[in-house]
Structure formats: C-alpha cells, structure tokens
C-alpha cells in the first residue's frame, strides 16, 4: 500500500478510494473463502476509476441506497478566569456516509449557508455551484468521507456549557474551583463532560470534592484531576468541583494553569446550519436520507 502511495520519496496518491482500487483490501471474508476453497479471491477490480470522477468506481451496487449526513460543530474557546470569552470560534465538519449505487449526483442545500465562511470541500464538490448559489453539488465517493469543513462567521457567542475556573493560594497549597453550568443548548442534554485539570508538578496531598460525577486523580510527574460527568440537563443547576492540594517546596517547572473541557451535545447545532434539501439527480432509485447534528468542544479551555 505504501509503495503505491509514495514513489521514490514523492507522494503520489493519497485518495482513499483510488487506493482501494489499486490495492486489494485484505478482508476476513476473503481469507475464509481462500482457506476453505484454496484459491485466492484477491482479483483486482480492474481499472475502476472513471475519468471524470477518479474518486468513484463505476460499478457500485448497493441493495439499499442510503446517504447519511453528520454535521458536527466544534467550539474552540478560551475562557478566562472572570468568565469572559477571550477567544470563541466555531468550526465544523460535514461528514457523509454514502451507500449509493451507480453514479449519483447529489445536490445539497444548506440553511443559513451565508454564514459559512472559509469552506473547504472534498474534491468531488463542484466549487462553481457553491460560489454562485451556495448549493453543494457532488458525485459522492463510496463509503464514509468528509464532504466539507467550514468556519462559521458569527458574532453571537452561545455556549452550550458554561465553565468557570478559579484558583486561590492558601498558606501552603492551592485551591481550585471549577464550576460547570448548562448554557444555551436548545433544551438538549450535554453529554460526556470531561474536565481535565492539570496541576502543578509539585502538588501532593490532592483532595477532591464533588457532588456529582466521577473523578480520577493521577499523581505521577504530571499530576492531574479528571472529572467526568455523564450528562447535564438544561434545567440542572451548576455543579462544582473543588480541588485542594499542597505544594512541595521544589523549583517550579512549567505548568499550565488552565482546565481542558470536552463535551458533546447531540442533536444541537451551535451554528444552526441545517440541511434543507438533498436531491438526487441522474439516478432513478429512491434515496434514504439521514441527517444528524451534534456540537462538540474542540479545544475548549478555561483559564484560572
């Protein structure tokens, strides 16, 4: 596989579908057949790539024709100790999974497409259509692929989760308070909240108090506290984590004073990008469509 990808130090082919055409993928099924019957099934799907769409083989057949779209918004933010957002950015990906027969041509219309700036498309997308009327026209490659990634130009700053961090020095140690509070999530649950608080490398005697969720304390060279909350409902009140620790008297080494937060809000899109329509051209079968939205924390950190 690598020999197809790189030729004497020069990168040649990195497109997944093209590679799949060139190198047969070993599969368990194939191996079973081979062992039982005694001959190899690894014959090559010969020269499949068509000329105008090298990412798609000509003869693809699926019994069910399905197309799934997954829109994931990622929030990058830096929140400082007073709770104001120093940096806030929403980026997102449109990932698709295509199981379509033949050579379908899809046209996707997005709601609020004007708010997207800096959109990066998979090469299968016809850029011209996007530039003129903001529709995404493409011949999808087979299987999962990333259709586009975008950046949202918006000034509003809605936070699905408000996290505040505060650190105080006590006489021979530190106290860190982290509070988590649900924000605007369109009354959805915020799931899989994980707050990672790296502590000073001199910390010892680490004590953690929290009412809900579980926490793991790591006391290695880089001590840290990881706090996991399964979910928070929009109506819940704030949850607090208190970490107390003492400091060894040792030279200070580099440490970070920020907490890293990850979370997921399934079914909610911060950017409110919607798939308005998905039309199928050039093929006659009926298409099963599925769209899923979610919002995640990209690099979300809280300074204290």
């Amino acid at each position, binding site marked *: 596989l690598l020999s197809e990808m790189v030729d004497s130090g*020069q*990168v*040649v082919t990195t497109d997944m579908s093209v590679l799949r055409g060139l190198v047969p993928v070993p599969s368990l099924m194939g*191996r079973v057949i081979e062992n039982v019957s005694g001959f190899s099934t690894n014959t090559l799907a010969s020269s499949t790539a068509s000329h105008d769409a090298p990412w798609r083989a000509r003869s693809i057949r699926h019994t069910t024709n399905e197309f799934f779209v997954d829109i994931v918004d990622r929030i*990058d933010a830096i929140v400082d100790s007073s709770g104001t957002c*120093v940096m806030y950015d929403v980026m997102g990906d449109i990932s698709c999974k295509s199981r379509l027969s033949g050579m379908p041509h899809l046209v996707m219309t997005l709601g609020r497409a004007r708010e997207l700036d800096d959109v990066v498309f998979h090469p299968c997308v016809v*850029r011209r259509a996007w530039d003129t009327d903001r529709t995404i026209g493409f011949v999808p490659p087979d299987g999962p692929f990333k259709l586009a990634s975008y950046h949202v130009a918006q000034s509003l700053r809605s936070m699905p989760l408000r996290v505040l961090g505060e650190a105080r020095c006590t006489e021979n140690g530190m106290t860190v308070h982290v509070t988590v509070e649900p924000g605007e999530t369109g009354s959805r649950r915020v799931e899989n909240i994980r707050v990672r608080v790296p502590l000073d490398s001199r910390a010892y005697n680490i004590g953690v108090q929290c009412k809900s969720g579980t926490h793991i304390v790591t006391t290695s060279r880089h001590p840290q506290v990881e706090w996991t909350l399964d979910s928070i409902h929009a109506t819940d009140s704030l949850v607090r984590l208190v970490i107390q620790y003492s400091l060894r008297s040792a030279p200070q080494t580099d440490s970070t004073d920020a907490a*890293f937060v990850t979370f997921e809000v399934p079914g909610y899109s911060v950017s409110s990008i919607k798939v308005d329509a998905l039309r199928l051209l050039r093929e006659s079968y009926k298409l099963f469509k599925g769209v899923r939205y979610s919002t995640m924390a990209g690099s979300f950190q809280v*300074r204290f």
Partner: protein
Amino acid sequence: MAEYLSRAMAFAQDAAKLSVRLSEGLVDNALEFGLDTPGSFYDNAEYKLGQVRTELNSGTEKEKLTAMKRLLACVAKGHDVSEYFADVVKNVATGSLEVRRLVYMYLLRYAEQEQDLALLSVNTFQRDVADTDAVIRAMALRVMSSIRVPAIGTIVVLAVRRLSTDTSAHVRRTAALAVPKLLRLDSALREELEEVVSGMLGEISPLAVGAVVRAFCEVSPQRLACVHTHFRRWCAQLGDADEWGQLELVRLLTAYARTQFAQPDPEGSSSSGQSGNVWLDPDHALLLGAVEPLLNSRNRAVVAGAAAAVCHLAPAAQLSVVARPLVRVMRSSHEAAHVVLASILLVAQRRPSVFYPHVRSFFVAAADTPFVRRMKLHVLSELVAPETAPLMVREVAAYTQGSQEDVAVGAVSVLLRCAQHVQESTIDCLQSLLLLSSDVRAPVSAAAMRAVHILLVDGTVRDARPAQMTLYDMLCVVARTLDTCKGDGARAHVLSLVGEFAESRFGCQHSLDVLRSSVRAFRDEGEQTRMQILELSTRLSLRVQGEGALAEALREHTSFLSKVHAHAFTLARYDVSFEVRDRARSLRGLCPLPGYDDALVEAAPHVLAIASELLGSAESLVAARVRPEPEFTLGSLSLTVGRKMRGYEPLPDWPAQPPQNVDRGPAVVAVASGPQHIAVAGISGRARADAGYATPRSTADDEDLDAFLDSAEDDATVLKAPFLPPAAVVFEQALESSSDEYSDSDSESEVSGSESEGSNSGSESSGLDSDESGDHDKINETVVIKQVKEVNDIKDSETLDADKDGEETSPFIGPPDFEGTSKYWQ
C-alpha cells in the same frame, strides 16, 4: 448377518477414517488460518527461512506467497536475505498478482547488489510493460525504473517512451514518475528523457499532469520556454489536478510567473510603460485566479503552497485572501501550526493588516507546544497596531501572570512593542511592566525591567506624556523595586537606570542612597548587579567632580561618596567572579581611586587623553546603538527565529527556502525594465526548485520588451485558447478582475518561486519565503558586526578588556555600559 456386520464395521471404519481426515484437514486449515496474520511472519521468519527455498520452488501460489512474506519480514527486520535472490527472480513471471508484488518489493531491495541476476528479470518486465492490464503495466514500469542497474537504462527509457503515450492515465503518470528516477540513475540519459518529457507536456488527464510537471522540472529546469504553450491550460487544470500534482504545478507556475510577468506594483509597471502592463496582466491574473481556489483545498500542503504562491505573485492589496486559510491550517493541528506559523510570521511582517481580524486566533492556548507559543507571540508582536492594541494589551497582560515562563517573557516583549508603537497604550503597558518587575521569576522580571529601561531611555514614555506620573515618580517606583525584586538581571537594569538618570531630579535626591544601600548588600548581589553597582559608583563619583545638577546636589557628600566608591572597589577587587574583578579593573583605569591608585593619578592626563578618544568613538557607538535599538531588540527576536529557520531548512518538510532566497527580485524588475530580463540566479543544490529561473523564452533574440510580450501573448492565445474552453472562460474572468484590481495595485512584491512540499501526507509544510526576515537578519548581522567591531576597537585602543563574554551572552547589559560611560564623559 456376519457379512452385514463386517460391512457395517468397514463402513464405520471408513467413516472414522474420513472423519479423522476431515478433522485433520480442518485443523490444518485452521492452523494456517491462524498463521496467516502478518504478525506471525515477523515472529518466526528466521526459523522458517530454511523452508523458503523449497517453498519458492514449489508449484503452488500459496506456498510461494508464504515464502515471500517470510523473506520480506526478514528484510523488514534488517536481515540480509540476498542469498535467495536467484530463487526469487524465477518467480517474477508468476501469475498471482500478490506474489508478484512481493517479488517486486524484494527485487527493489536487492537488485543493486545482484545486478547480473536482476537482469534476468528484465525480460519479464518488458513483457509486462505490454500487458493488457494497466495496473500491471504501471507496476512493471515502476519496478523497472526503480531497479538501480545502470545497464538497463536505455531499455527503460524505451519503455517510458512507449508508455508515455499509453491510454491509461495511471500508466502515463508512472512513466512520468520514472523519469526523475532514471535521471538520478544515469544523467547521460538526460537528452533522451527531455525529448520524452516534452512529448508528454500535452498531458490532459488531471491524474497525470502533476507527475509530468515534476518530471519536467527535474529533467529540464532550464527550459521554461516549454511552459509558454501550456501555461493557460495548466492554469485551468490547476483545480482538477490531484493534490500533490497541484503542488508541483503551483510551484512551476510561480517560478514561471516570476520570470514572465511584471511586478504587480505601480513603480515596476510604470517603468516598463503602460502598454506592457496591460498586456502582461491577463495571464498573471489568470494564474492568480486559478491559484486562489486552492487556498480552500482540504490538503494543507496545497493550501500552504498556494498561499506562498499568492504571496509571491499577488499585489500586496490582495494578500488578504491568504490570511484565513493560513489561520485555518494553523488551527488544524499542532504539527501544521508548527510549520505554518513561520510563514504567517513572514506575511505578518510584510503586511500585518491582513491578520488583524484574526488576532484572537494567535492567542496562546494552554495546550500549545512551546515552539508554537513562541511563534504565536512573535506573530502577535508583529500585529501590534492601534486597532489591535486594546485587545492585545489585556490578553498579553494576562499571559504575564500565567505560570509559563517563556510565555510571560514573550508577552513582555509584546507589551514593549505595544508601548512603543501605540501611544495610547504606552502607559498601560508601562504599568503592567512595572508590576512585573517584582515577579518571583528572574527571567520575567529581568525582561520586564529591560523593557522599562528601553522605554524610559528611548523616549517613548516621554512622548506619551503620562498625565498622572512624572519621570520622578516612575523612577521612584523603579528604584523601590530594588527592595522586593530578587532577580539579578532586573536589579542590574534598575541600577543602570539610576545611573542613566543621575542628572535628573531623582538622581540628585536619591542616587547616593541607592548606591549606599546597594554597596552595603554588595556581597549578596548577583554578578550583573555587582558590575552595575561598580558602574553606578564610578558614574556618580566622576560626575561629582564635574559640573551639573548632580555635582551641586552632592557637593557636601563628596567625601562620603568617595569612601563608598573606594569600598565598592575594594570589595570588587576580591570578588569571586572573574568578570566583576575585570570590570572593576577597567573602571578603575577610567576613574582612579584617590589614595589607592596614586600611580594612576599621576598618569591621569594620559588616561584623560584616552578617555577623550573613547568619548569620540563612544559617541558614534551610542548613535549607532540608540537609534536602532528598538529595531535591534525586536529584530533580534526575529534573528533568533531566523536562526531557527535556517536550522529547520534541512528538514524534509521545509525545502523551499534556499532557492527562494536566490530567486529574488531582480528577475521581475529586469523583465519590467527591458531586454536583459534574465536573472542569473545562483543555482543552489536543488535544481528542481530553480526551475523557473534561468531562461525566459527570448534568450536567443533579445528584442525589446513589448515585442517580446506581444509574441508571448500571440502564440499563447493562438495555440491554447481554441482547444480549451475553460481556460478562455477563466481568462475572461481574469480580465475583468484584472482591470479593476491589478491596474492600481501597489505593492512591493518579491520575486521567487515559492514552493512548498509536504513530503508525506502527515506533515504539511509551507514555503513562504523569508526574504523579509532574511533581510532583517542581514541588517541585524551587519549592525551587530559593526557594533562588535567598534567595541573591539575601543577595547584595543584602551587595552581594557571589558568582558566580551558578558557582552555576547547578555546583550542588554552591555549597551548601558557604553552609553553610560559616554554620557558620563560628556
């Protein structure tokens, strides 16, 4: 009955036998099935090597496959298995594609050692080259060209020639890729290959065009003339080509454009006349229009490459398109940020305004790697401007309180820059800096005091006219930090500030106290501080002998001062530090101690004579130093970066720099100004990258520019416009855009083939070109050299050896000395 029984017995036995056989077979199969994972080949490859030969010679494909896998596992583990070469070569013609692939891999590994035997396989390859399956053709050609056996060079060239007109784009691409390999094998084949490649330049498949361009760059970097006829088509194809091909194309076209088009700025075009400008621009705009969509590529290497191209080709007014893609790439991953930040820094130095909307993206995040942090701070300090300052000062002041030391130090330099460039924020910055001076971390407080020092000395603070604070107040605050501040560097700066402003109101009232208290703590101070104490003492006692405000104020304390002075020098004489003793000796030469150095006092006229000489040279030194000091200190940051970048160049993902530095401006300027448009660029090691440079098309007939451009225009349109409609469309668009954008563009543009190359899919690289920093570096270097020279001169003439090491290791302790002494002598 008995018969029946015996039959039943026999049947049962048969059944038993059968079942045993079956189960054995199943077990066998199962065993093999289990063995058939790649891992097992790695584990037991050595032990089973003995079987390999028999397996290779056996009839079944499957055994051959196992044998080959074992061999390759051994190769991967670093064993030498070349003894099996002969057996392997026999299998070249095997039917199974999988075995053949493995055999090829083996061949590639050992063909160079066993040249004679490898020749045996060439026949098969030649047959394969004519195979009906395109994949096999491509594979055979690739292996054939990769086998480094010079004897078959000509045969391979024949094959390449044949396959270069193949129907399959994949095969054509392999043929094109084979060209550089052959060239490396035997450079005598160049001419033949040139011919083949020029035949291939008409490639229309987007799949192969990149490889062809690469082959072209490799084979005939000198013959840019060949590009003319293809230029427009390539521009149109740029969007369709595969990603790595896009990189090659952009690189070539950039190089080409730098030789062919006028500089897109008014000065350049006016010198070549209006007509030239009008005729040139459409193609240039066409190229820019084609490159711009690449900025939205999903491949980060392409983005970086396209950004570099735009930076080198577009007028400065258009640079803003680059900003967002570069920022996006930067944020996509740490690795990409690493590389792209360097180019962002360069663009920001050239045109900071394009990044103003993205300032927030450069805020340091806690998860950034140290290098990224540093680079972000450099970028931030480049982006300092009235628009960004309020936002930035707040953010950066927060960094200084953070626990990361390098960030805090970097933030101090950003604050310094803010204070110097944005007058409204000067006082804010100064206050944050003063707060920092008592920071527990020595480097941070030293940096902060240094910044305060610079701000006070270079007059920024004076210009800002602080309403609520006078210079006196400020100096009081600074001096008071001596009580709290622990850092050696910071204390040294405070003392040198006190010495600096000895003639001011503050100096008159308090300098003696400062000196007294610091001499008392002499032993506990750090090395730099001790030196500064000596200097302060010298300054004061010399100034007291002269006239001026200070002399008036200290009139009645003269004897006390001289005692303190003598005490300080006695302490310094027995100091543990070589440098302090040295400094004391040199200062004593300038200002003899009464009662101790009577011999020197007698020689005073002589010393004074030398001192007046020093005054002369020191004056010029101060002039040289005080003037460029802000530039120098900021520049020295970029100087550090410059060094870093030179260090990074050898890395495979940063290949673009050296040729770019070679391919600078003269080419375009020359095109714009007349017939001698050939930039004789120094050819660096990488011939490919120099592609653009040597020969524009009319080398032979040096006519005047307009005629030359005319012809270019004509043959390009005649040849290309008819057979590619899209080109024409883009061309028209380009015309439109050019009319409004390009005609009044103002930019200093630089010439260069920009290029970038991600040598593997994981690491992206950008080759923004570092002319600015290069120049900077140069200037800085010359400044430094000059200064060092001057310093050395002084040293020589004085035969005082002021500490040279101290000068070099702590560049900002050095300057105050000389400034101070010179001021004193005045």
